[in-house]
Structures are given as structure tokens and as C-alpha cells.
């Protein structure tokens, strides 16, 4: 019998199970876009049929990192920029878990940029939600990697001289097998995309546009948005990488010109996930490693029997 009976439980899941009854101390500002992510995430849990005990939500540091406080599940509020390495190892240790990583644009594209590139490259089977509000929220409004060029803040008084990061293109070129962008102001699409991302077998990157009314008042509320998959003007095939790259580039350019393009940019359901690749070459067990520690019948090997002959 599994030591993790919460996993795979067959019952109706109510989204309210994911709402803490205790009002968390960590509080987002009224009107914060982060509430949109929270809502969409909670709504998608019944869709994928997961309960709070089988979900591991790993966050970084930032306002976005406080997501855990509002979401009832196994949670790991880690350190700035490091949610991905923690999350992907947990998934390797127990692939039966639903593993979600989340953080801000500073967290994910700045300090954690290297991990983003490598997690996408390896195509870990997990979902990564980046709360993209084009600003550092928690540290009070500094310029972030997605702030537009010329963006003025207390630490960039003359305006940023840097071009913003292009997260969709970065995810694509790094090897993510699912790339989407949605917005807090678009709850229906957000729920749909998060559901699809979690069901996707591989690294699913969701750039989630969220507004920060406190520090980024100038920023658009990301309305009106256009869903590129539902609009004939943007005739493209998200399973074609070339198409996806063109579309992503277009969406990233036009965002800074006031046009908000959202939707699925790339879906590759053929590419094996990292864990499948690793199992195929014999570097990962078929059964979840974590289960083994609870299996009283498992015979643990000894180096004395396995390796000492080499040293005689």
C-alpha cells in the first residue's frame, strides 16, 4: 500500500478546500493582481482532480511568494529565486505529486533566471507560474527585469537603460514544452491555461500578467487583452515552434506598446519529460523514490556487498 494515500484519491474536489480558514498575516494590497492568480489556481484544482495533500506549491520571495499563505496545500515558501530547483527535485523524488512553482518577475527572471533557463531546458514535468507585474513589489517598487525601457523608479531615477527580458521567447529557446501568457483580469482564460499547464506532461511556463496598483500605477491593467488562440487575426499553430517563436516575439514587443496578447503560444506534447528521459537511460527508478523509504519490505543495498570488491 502507498505511504501517500492522499495521492490519487478518487473523489469530488471542492475548490474551497484550498482556502485557508485562518486569514493569513501576509496580505496583498487591495486590487493586487496576485488575487487573480490565486483565484484561477484554486479554480483549476478541481478540474485536475487534485486535493491539498497531493499538491506541493513551491514559491520564491516577493509579494508573489506569499501565494502559499492564501493557498491550502503542502507549501514551500523558499528563498528569492530558488523555487525551481527545490520544486524540480521534489518532483524527481516523488513524480506522483502535483508540483507547482511560482514567483515574481524579479524572482523568476532576475535572480532565478539561470534556474529558469535550465529547468526549461530539462523539461521537468511541472508548472511554473510567474507573476509578471513589471516591478519589484515587496521591496517597494524598484525596476524589475520586465519593466519597460525608460521605466523610472527610486533606484533608476533616470529611467532604465535596459531592454526588458522577453520571458516567452526565453522559455521557448530554453526548451519549455508549454508556453503561455495569461492575465489576472481574464479569470476564465487564466483558469483554463493553468489547468492545461498542470495537465501538460513537461515544463509548462505561464507568464501571468498581474497588476501592482501600489508601485506600478502607470502600468496598464492589461486590458483590453486579446486571446491569440481565439482570434482569427493571429492565425498561427502553437504546435509549430517557428510559428510560436514569431507569435511570442510579437506579443512581447506589442505589450510595451499597449497591446496585450495572451493565450497558448507553444504546446509540444511529443517531447518526453525529463523524468521520462532519465528513466529511459536508467538514471531514475520507475517507482517514486520517496515511496521506498516507507516500504518495510524493501531490501536496502550495502556498499559492502556491491562495491568493495573493486577495492580489494
Amino acid at each position: 500500500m502507498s505511504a501517500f494515500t492522499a495521492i490519487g484519491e478518487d473523489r469530488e474536489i471542492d475548490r474551497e478546500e484550498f482556502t485557508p480558514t485562518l486569514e493569513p498575516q501576509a496580505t496583498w494590497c487591495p486590487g493586487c493582481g496576485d488575487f487573480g492568480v490565486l483565484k484561477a489556481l484554486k479554480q483549476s484544482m478541481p478540474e485536475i482532480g487534485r486535493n491539498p495533500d497531493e499538491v506541493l506549491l513551491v514559491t520564491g520571495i516577493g509579494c508573489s511568494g506569499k501565494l502559499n499563505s492564501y493557498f491550502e496545500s503542502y507549501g514551500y515558501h523558499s528563498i528569492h529565486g530558488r523555487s525551481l530547483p527545490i520544486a524540480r527535485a521534489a518532483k524527481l523524488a516523488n513524480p506522483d505529486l502535483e508540483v507547482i512553482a511560482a514567483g515574481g518577475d524579479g524572482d523568476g527572471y532576475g535572480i532565478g533566471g539561470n534556474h529558469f533557463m535550465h529547468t526549461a531546458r530539462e523539461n521537468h514535468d511541472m508548472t511554473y507560474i510567474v507573476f509578471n507585474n513589471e516591478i519589484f513589489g515587496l521591496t517597494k517598487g524598484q525596476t524589475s527585469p520586465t519593466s519597460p525601457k525608460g521605466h523610472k523608479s527610486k533606484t533608476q531615477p533616470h529611467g532604465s537603460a535596459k531592454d526588458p527580458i522577453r520571458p516567452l521567447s526565453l522559455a521557448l529557446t530554453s526548451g519549455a514544452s508549454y508556453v503561455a501568457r495569461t492575465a489576472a483580469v481574464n479569470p476564465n482564460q487564466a483558469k483554463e491555461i493553468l489547468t492545461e499547464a498542470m495537465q501538460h506532461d513537461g515544463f509548462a511556463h505561464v507568464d501571468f500578467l498581474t497588476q501592482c496598483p501600489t508601485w506600478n500605477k502607470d502600468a496598464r491593467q492589461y486590458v483590453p487583452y486579446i486571446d491569440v488562440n481565439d482570434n482569427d487575426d493571429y492565425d498561427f499553430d502553437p504546435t509549430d515552434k517557428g510559428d510560436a517563436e514569431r507569435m511570442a516575439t510579437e506579443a512581447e514587443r506589442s505589450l510595451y506598446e499597449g497591446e496585450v496578447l495572451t493565450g497558448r503560444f507553444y504546446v509540444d506534447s511529443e517531447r518526453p519529460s525529463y523524468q521520462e528521459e532519465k528513466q529511459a537511460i536508467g538514471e531514475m527508478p520507475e517507482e517514486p523514490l520517496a515511496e521506498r523509504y516507507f516500504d518495510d519490505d524493501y531490501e536496502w543495498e550495502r556498499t559492502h556487498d556491491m562495491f568493495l570488491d573493486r577495492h580489494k
Partner: protein
Amino acid sequence: MTDHELMWRIAGGSGDGIASTSQNFAKALMRAGLHVFTHRHYPSRIRGGHTYTEVRADSEPVRSRGDGFNCLLALGDSFARNPQEDAYYGNEEVKPLAENLDELNEGGVIVYDTGLLDVDEIPNFEERVEENDWHVYPLNLREIARDHGREVMRNTAGVGATAALLGIDLQYFEELMAEAMPEEILEPNVEILHYTHDMVKEEFEFTHDLRVPEGSHDEEQVLLSGSDTIAYGAIDEGCRFIAGYPMTPWTEVFTIMSQALPELGGISEQVEDEIAAAALALGASHAGVKAMSGSSGGGFALMSEPLGLAEMSETPVVLVEAMRAGPSTGLPTKPEQADLEHVLYTSQGDSNRVVLAPGTVAEAYEQSRLAFQLAYGYNIPVVLLYDQKLGGELMNVPASHFDREPNADLGAVTTEEELEEAPHGPGGKFHRYRYDAEDGVSPRSIPGQKGGHFLVTGNEHNQAGHIDEDPTNRVTQMERRMSKLDGIREFLDGQSTQTYMGPDEAEYGLVTFGSQQGTVREAVERLNDAGHSVKGIGVSDMMPYPEAEMTEFLESVDEAVVVEMNASGQFRGLTQKELGRFGGKLSSLLKYNGEPFEPAEIVAGFEASIDGEDVPDQQTTYVPAAGD
């Protein structure tokens, strides 16, 4: 130590097979019944450059490199002869011979390859041979190898020659070669081995009297390095996940684990950097797998933040720190023990981690197991601190030392049955961080367990894991986390993890930690033989510090010298800080030139300390006691 001990040094260019040849040499002598110990010296480059390995062998147990050496096999540096010659400075070509003569003992034996080395290029060679009573056997190893096989087999020719000169039975080498080599290269190698052996016996008149000592073992022995035993200890303790990024000398443990884990159904991950590596280990551990990561100085610096997170979140993990000489990139391939303070105090906040520093190859196995027991038993990060010397040296250990039960116990975790009974907060959140935990250890649940969900955070948090800045909560949780160290100290006191040397009663003490333990032991023996009254202690618990044991030891002696491989006396400093006294009793003998101590240096340092004289050797530094 007996009069007949062999201290054989093989020297050549990096990449010329010095390491594998010396390893086989040591193994052959071990199979012949001797105790062996190897010491490795290599520059920070891949091909070319001077490198050597010493194999010390005796019928009695050997625990250090010894003083100097008495038999040199100087192979040429083949790379120094290739077209890139201009890229070298100095006289690289003769280095395998010239560089090693300074430490060759009187009456020593020299075998060198005339095919690659020219003694005319070495200043005053003849005079020095005469003066030191060296016995020289020139041989064209290169030609022999080329005639009977391939030039790269020069090593085998050299081994055949020294075997003849020292009286070692070729059978052991043949067996080892047969075990390791494919047919097509085995044949010429065996031929070269015998040819050179017989030729040396026929053509030379032996003027030296150094012969390999005789010995026998009561039980089967294995030849292992500190890196091997750290890895094996981890595996036997149920570690099945490792994440790392290469950095010398930690790479050895990482490599051994990466090759072993897939065979055991475990997982190894080479990742983008050390921050990620440590974070992965935390993630795997959190999800219910025994996990480790590690690095050397610079890489460990990057792990500082995940280490703090492990402390605050009480995620068990073992981090290995393989010291090399610093600061910064320092001497990448040379040993030093100067990261002690780095490992004790890195990361923000008050440390509540465990730091263990094994002293020998055999002890590294035990301490590696202990590291996992403490980490998982107390939900706390444990750092296993060792250095390039211990990681790379090979020593024989009885195979029975490793004949123990595996232990995959996950430690302080709950089961689903226990979760049903356990206290929960609003929303069904499990009380992961209970105020009333016994010994401060509040058991964790594993994601996927029913009824066990909770929040881990690097922020201060309440019983359910929610971020909480209430002062009373803060103090309660701080005290609970810190109190685990008291329990661990008590547990360790019951294990007696420190190593005692010499007589129970003595006037003076030698104190050391980590890899210098064997050398200090040898020095203690020699000093007592010479009529001094000295005992020694090799300390392996750095945090929590063995207060009671050290107090007792230091109270029992009039004065003590702390022997360590760093410039600032970090372990002496720790001892004084932890015990709050003994400042007037403790002096330091330090070495930080990139080479480990030799026993004679410790003997000389000790004698100078009691005579109030300067240490004769320029390579070590004596710092007298500060006074209370």
C-alpha cells in the same frame, strides 16, 4: 614505523598515468600483506606539469605520508616534449627528477627514464648523489616500452624495474593488470613488466639495501580514499539523491555517488550552479528522500542561503565541504583547513547546524553515516567538513569495517496513522513546528501524506508554518530550534566521536581536527618514544562543540599545541571561544603552504614549543600561547 618501511614516489607529468599506476602499486603491496598510505600532489592543470604520488608501505599500520621518501621512480613528462614546448616556463622536462630530489632521504634509490630525462640538465647531480649516498639506476624505459608495446606503457616498465630493485613479487601486479586491462593491452604490459624486471636483475649490481618489508594481514583489506568512504557512508545510510556542480576536490565524492546511485535506483543530478545543487537536495529531502549535496569553498559560499533555509525550515540535508587552499580560488588542488569558520558561521542568523570533521579514511565512513543520522533524526542540516588531503589519500582498511547494516530510516517523520492523531490548525493544517516538541524535534510530514499538509518557510513561522512575527512565538521557535544542539551534543557524548592518542596521563597535549589526525598520532608516538610525555586528541565535532571532553583533556595537561593547516589558527580560536578559557595553555602549530604536515614537522614544532625556540622548518609557523 619500522626501519624497513618503503616510501616510494612516482613522478611524472599530469595525465601520464601517475595516479592509476600508484594506485595499483599500493594495491599490490596491500595484497602482499602490507599496510599502505598514499599521498597525492598535483598541479592545477590537466596535461603536463609536474605531479607525483607517494606510496608508503610498512608491516605496521601507516597513518601519514611520512617524512620525505626513499625511492624515486622518475618517469618523464611526455607532454613537456610535445610541440607546445614554448608554453612552458622553467625546465619542465627534467622536473620529475629535479623537483623531487630535495625530499629524497639519504641512502635513497633513484630509477629514472633516460629516454625522457637527461641528468646533465640537472645542476650538481653527481655531487648530490655522492653527498646523499643515493643509488641511481638509469634505464631507458621509453625505449623498452616502445620496443615491447607502446610508449605509454613506460609506467609498467618503471614498475617492473622498481619491483626488481625492491624485491616485490610480480604476481601481484600481473593479477591487478589482468583484472583491469583488456586482452590486447594486457599482453604487452605483462611482457614489459617481466622484461624490465629480469633485465634490471641481470644488468645491475644492487648497491642499495632498501627492500620491501614483509607483512601479512589477519583479515581482508580494502584500499579506499576519504572520498570513497564518505560516499559509501552516505549510501549505507540510505542516501539516494545527490545534486552537485563540479569543483575540486568535492568532485570526487560527486563522481563516486553519480556512478553508484543509478545502480542502486537512486538519482544524481549535475545542475547549473551550487545554489541550485543545495536547493535540489532540500527539495528531494522535503519530498521524503535522503539527500545530499556539497562543494568546495567557493561553491559552498553559494550554498549559504539554502543552508540557512534548511535551518529555518528544519529540512534535513547533508552538505559536504571539501576544503582546498583559499581565499577565493586559492590553490585549487592543494589542501588546507581554512574553511572551518566559513562553514560554522556562513548564512544569516544564529546557526543551528551540525558540523562534523572526520580525521581518517575509516572515520570518514562513520562520520558520513552519522551526518545522515543527525540530519534526519533532528531535522537539521549537517555539514561534513574534510579536505583535499583526506579526500584523495588512499589507505587500507579492513573490509569488515564496512560490514554493517544499512539504515534508511527517515528519522523524525510522521506516518499517516500518526497524522490522524496529531494536532492540526484551522483549515486542517498539520502542526509541523510544535512548541512542545521533545528535545526540540518536531516531526515532519511528507508531501502526499494524507492530513499532513503544512507550510515550510524561511520566514519565522508558527506551529502550522504560517509566517508569524509575534515576539513570543519567535522566542519559542528560536529556542526550540537551538535546543536541538543540546540533544545532539548529548547523543554525541554517548558515541565518543573524538580520537585519543598516546598515554592517558601526560604532561603535554597535541590537539588537532580533521585530516591531520593520522600525522599527529604518529608524532605523538615518536615523541613518547623520544622520552617526552605527550598525549593527543583528534576532534571531529566542530558544532556542537565537545565541551566536556575538551575541558577534561585540556585540564589534564600543562600545555597543548593545536596543529592545523591554516594561517589563523581557526580551530584554536574555536576552542577558546567555546570553552571561554585556556588561552594561556594553547599554542598553535600552523602550516599553509599547500602541503599537509609531515610527522617530523610536528615533532620539531612541539620540541621548539617546549624549549621556547623558533621552529626550524620555514614551512611551518609556531604561534605561542596568548596568555589568559
